[in-house]
């Protein structure tokens, strides 16, 4: 056990130092508390499903959205407290607005669609095989962009380096094993994942300082955009705008990679299980077949030599070229790069306890940390699970994460051999009631929408269970 933890620790540190990345992908935490849920091994490979199962197409669908920018950062109560004003209203000071914004304000959506999943459960062993399509879009809006809109001219430079846009799609082929000794109480498991990259692009700036001062503009920009898709490439058109072209005959994977999940589950007593795991230790080697760069320092405060012989046409043309080069990423013809993109990995630790007499009730706690450069977060929550019948389970959990209060709800039911489940990990903080035409939620008179930074994960699935049911 100690050896395993040591190896895991070393791997964690090593991956943290590797190339950084951004992701909106996280895990469906409520699945940890839910019984009769086949995909608990995704959070912890040592968790075995209760029965063997088979899913095709509808086995598991996960969709997530996260936003580090809340509506309360953009719309504020007015001074009188009887109305709302926008962040651009003169009553909202720059300092107050910036206190609601970060240097970067991430926003992301992700999807994980299961194409095929098979799980085979024996009493002390569980094997799983999955093919998933995963897509991820992450972005970040610099807080200084809002400051510029509100301030205008300022001698303080505007740092827009937090701007980020990344997207990728890949296929995940995973094989998992969980095993415990026949007379033991420690289950260990792992999942090996082969990753086939379909497409990836990211745009990021190491430096993007912009100075506005009495009509003069100075910039210091270092940025790069990379684009990986088999059969596709980027190019600058005659206007300098970046365009993409595709040749369907050359379609091929844009990258390959792999990842591994580790997990353990310790049951010192039959009613108590303590478990932990690390997910997505790995990454993808992308072959970026188009690279565009923006790297320039530029100051434009008028022409230096003004006189009869000044060639304004040339000077203005040069200035125009420089501005275009900064404003638009320029594709570097013929430049290809290979790069390793680390997946954002997650570490979790939790425990569940079945009540002694009322064994259909269990309580638990789960904490996770998501190692993400743009939007790292932690999440701690406690949950209550009711499983009155072995084929029915409902759970509710509540806790806190980086952004505030969180709530999780999930339920699963098996009718005959068909297992269905649905769940949501969601925001549990302040909401505002927004008017949306055609939608009227009873009790609210409108649509409740989070007003603070939030994240939400929804999942549902339909698969077939078979074989004998085992208790974890």
């Amino acid at each position, binding site marked *: 056990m100690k050896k395993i933890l040591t190896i895991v620790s070393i791997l964690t540190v090593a991956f943290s130092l590797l190339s950084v990345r951004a992701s909106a992908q996280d895990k469906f935490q409520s699945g940890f508390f839910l019984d009769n849920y086949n995909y608990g091994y995704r959070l912890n490979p040592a968790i075995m499903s209760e029965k063997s199962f088979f899913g095709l197409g509808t086995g598991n669908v996960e969709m997530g959205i996260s936003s580090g920018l809340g509506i309360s950062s953009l719309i504020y109560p007015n001074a009188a407290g009887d109305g709302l004003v926008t962040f651009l209203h003169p009553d909202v000071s720059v300092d107050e607005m910036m206190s609601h914004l970060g240097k970067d304000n991430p926003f992301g959506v992700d999807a994980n669609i299961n194409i095929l999943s098979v799980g085979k459960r024996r009493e002390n062993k569980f094997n799983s095989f999955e093919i998933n399509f995963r897509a991820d879009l992450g972005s970040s809006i610099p807080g200084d962009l809002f400051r510029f809109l509100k301030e205008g001219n300022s001698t303080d430079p505007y740092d827009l380096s937090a701007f980020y846009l990344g997207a990728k799609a890949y296929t995940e082929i995973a094989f998992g094993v969980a095993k415990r000794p026949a007379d033991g109480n420690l289950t260990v498991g792992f999942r090996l994942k082969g990753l086939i990259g379909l497409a990836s692009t990211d745009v990021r700036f190491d430096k993007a300082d912009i100075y506005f001062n009495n009509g003069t503009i100075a910039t210091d920009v270092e940025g790069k955009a990379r684009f990986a898709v088999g059969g596709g490439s980027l190019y600058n058109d005659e206007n300098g705008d970046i365009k993409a072209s595709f040749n369907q005959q050359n379609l091929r994977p844009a990258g390959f990679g792999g990842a591994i999940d580790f997990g353990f589950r310790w049951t010192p007593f039959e009613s108590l299980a303590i478990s932990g795991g690390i997910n997505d230790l790995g990454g993808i080697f992308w072959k970026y077949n188009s690279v565009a760069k923006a790297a320039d320092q530029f100051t434009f405060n008028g022409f230096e030599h003004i006189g009869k012989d000044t060639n304004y046409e040339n000077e203005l043309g040069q200035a125009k070229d420089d501005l275009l080069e900064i404003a638009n990423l320029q594709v570097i013809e013929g430049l290809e790069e290979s790069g390793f993109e680390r997946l954002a990995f997650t570490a979790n630790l939790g425990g569940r306890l079945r009540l002694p007499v009322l064994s259909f009730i269990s309580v638990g706690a789960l904490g996770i940390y998501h190692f993400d450069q743009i939007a790292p977060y932690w999440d701690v929550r406690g949950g209550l699970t009711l499983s009155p019948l072995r084929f029915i389970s409902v759970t509710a959990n509540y806790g806190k994460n980086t952004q505030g209060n969180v709530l999780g709800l999930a339920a699963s039911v098996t009718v005959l051999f068909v297992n269905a489940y649905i769940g949501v990990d969601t925001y549990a903080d*302040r909401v505002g009631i927004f008017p949306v035409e055609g939608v009227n939620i009873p009790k609210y008179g409108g649509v409740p929408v989070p007003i603070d930074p939030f994240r*939400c994960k*929804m999942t549902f699935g339909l698969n077939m269970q078979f074989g004998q049911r085992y208790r974890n």
Partner: protein
Amino acid sequence: MKKFLKTTGIAALAAFALAFSSCNVEPAYTLENLQNIDLNVTLFQNGIQLRLADSSSVFRVDTLMKSVGLDSSEFIKQGPDGSYYISYSDSMDLTEDISGIGLDEVITIDAVNFNEDISYNLEGFDLANLLAIVPPELQGEYTIPDIHYDIDKTVDIELLSGQDLPEMLVGVGDIVLDQVYTTVELLFTDLPGQDTQEYDLDATVTLPAFFDPTSIELKGKIKKNEVFSRNVQINKFNLSAVDFVAMRENNTTLSDQIVINGTVAAENVVVNLAGMGPTVNGTIGVAVADANGKILVKSIQAKIDYQMNQTFTSAFFALPEAFSDATIELPDATVDLTVKTNMALPLAGSADLKAQGAAAAVATINFEVPYSLDPSVFEEKTSHNTVSLNDLLEEAADSLDFVTSIATDKNTWCYIEPAAEYGMQLDIDLSLPLAFGAGTLIHFADTLEIGADTGKQIGQILQESSIGVKAHVTNTIPISADVTIKFLGYDEANGTYTAIPLNSPVSIQLPAPGEEGLLNIEIGAEKGNAALEKLTHMELGIDVHANGQALKGEDYIVLTDIYLLLPNGVHLDGNALLDQEENENE
């Protein structure tokens, strides 16, 4: 498909909302408050300085001028003091025209060559009488105390033909020659006496009066059958007394005489009377030429009557039609004409500026030509002229003719070295401050099509709320402006426009130079008025006034405290905009 997407979207939103149904409702973010957000916003609290004139601004002068149809990028300049001016420059190179004159052919002089027999009688000694009194048997050798012959020879020469003279040549002064010599050769074949008998030659060759020098002395000893030769370099011909105009008109030639006279004498000459005749014979030759048998001219002083007229057309600009009724006061322009040349020609010239095809000149620019006596040195002379651009503006067209006239002073000597390469360049620099006079009033009015779809959207917005912008404006640009906007609906059936009723006219004032003001645009209408949806066009009127000062680089417009009055439910129909662009492209 749209219905499906809409249904799916509403379902997803409802599910999303249900997920938050357990959350606390923040009292400030109630449905009522969120439906009535105060949308008055202020952008750029510290201000955004729009330097309309500064090169660092995207709102450059040339950009603005392009927007009204004036492509000024080629002739808008900025002076050292930061003020902008319009500068137009061009040049004419007349070198080819000058070389076409063929200066090396202005004066062509043929070499002079003649060689004629001479025969002179013995003077002072009666040989016939002596032979008569001396018996033949006694006619042997005798010593004659004095024998001399008088030499007198005149030869006509022709130097120039009138028909070869160029039209422009009205007079010639000094023609400096290059290594040209006059050579005289005298030969006697039968001088009495022994072959070794020497005679004293004392003669003078008188050259034409325009030669320099005009004579050659022939003095020395001469023997029988030995050529006596003398030469002298001819420095120049001075033809100032010659009427070349008459020569050309009468087709006469420049001719003169070379006269040789003098004596050949000897004393105590031993002669054989039996073989002695009464005359002495020989030849005399004269050549005026250089070593190659030519007369090369190094330089000429000439009087030339030459006129050259050339029209040079350059791009200019015409005011767009929108300014046809504008009152525009422009300052006077400075037009510098700089002539560079290595010629010594008494030239004067002028350039008439006129719209292409126009009969009368709007302005006349005079210029002087420098005088260079050394063809290797180009002299430059600039002539300053002031031109009233208000007159020019009335004639302004897409192109402007510079009708140039150049004429020589035919009473003043030109100095020409035919072998030199002469050139002349005429540079034109037009400069005027980028300013409008204080009386300027430019009224621009146009009816712009908004589009039925966009107009309808604006109308729908105005049915529910007002839109507008308020900002504090500081202006140092030497113009002020009043802008008015009217919304119109176009009735295709009748071809008429109907004014869309607004609560108040939309009027915008750009403060006068050096002043501050409030920019207040608020567009509001009677709520629920269905006529607003018929909005299709916008009538835009702009009145620009000026204070007569030139635009400078540091002039600016600063907008601070920008308030936007936004309507509820504003949205842009991207498809409608895209369709409109595609239609325009088509």
